[in-house]
């Protein structure tokens, strides 16, 4: 069932979508996207760059956020804009949780502007992989 503009309210939350990423997910994303930067595949290269080991592609995290939004909205064609500032690295074993909140509604254009984010849950706490992102849906 597709989301209707009439069902939206300011402040409404997007149902969060969680996914735990393993090393094999990073490899699969590297193959599918063609982004084989060693930062995502080679612990030694990642350590030389100052990380504890390989980190997930920012675009894998953003792709998960887009999946969360298009599932809720009922189709990729409803997403007009998505902006994602990457704030913290995601490591294998982390669970990422995508979410968002309706910030404003434009009934004339049938558009909703959302603040969107992805948090990282790991032992010892949570932080934002994507913080203060913005999405525009047209319904």
């Amino acid at each position, binding site marked *: 069932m597709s989301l209707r503009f009439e069902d939206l309210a300011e402040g409404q939350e997007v149902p969060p979508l969680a996914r735990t990423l393993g090393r094999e997910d990073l490899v699969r994303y590297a193959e599918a996207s063609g982004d084989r*930067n060693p930062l995502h595949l080679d612990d030694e290269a990642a350590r030389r*760059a100052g990380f504890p080991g390989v980190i997930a592609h920012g675009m894998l995290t953003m*792709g998960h956020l*887009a999946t969360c939004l*298009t599932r809720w909205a009922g189709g990729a064609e409803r997403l007009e804009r998505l902006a994602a500032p*990457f704030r913290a690295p995601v490591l294998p074993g982390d669970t990422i949780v995508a979410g968002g909140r309706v910030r404003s509604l434009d009934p004339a254009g049938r558009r909703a502007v959302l603040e969107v984010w992805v948090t990282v849950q790991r032992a010892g706490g949570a932080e934002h992989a994507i913080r203060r992102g913005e999405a525009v849906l047209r319904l």
Partner: protein
Amino acid sequence: MNQAVEGKAYPPVRYEVTTEAVRAFAAAVGEDPDRVPPTFLTVPEMTALAQVVADPDLGIDFSRVVHGEQAYEWRRPVLPGDVLSAAPRIERIRSRGGHAFLTVETEIRDRAGEVVALARCTLIERGTG
């Protein structure tokens, strides 16, 4: 990085969208296999960006690069069979806190020349200090 290359445009790179590539990408980002994920555009975008990061005039050290920010504006959904062209242009280069920030806008058009999407990528070249 050399700030003098701000505004530099690069030739468009051709990219053909295949069902196989879409399925592999959809599986990687947890999307249904028969849907084209919106961020699939990163594939033609990154193909086009390869010539930017390899440009000796820019002088970026890719081993110190992380992805700082990414934005897309879609004008229409991407479909299997689309033949896209992705043309990057260096929008700005800035230094802040010992790091250098490179923002590239890539215009993605279809075979008819219509704009499919605009992509804006900010890469951070981390300082050595």
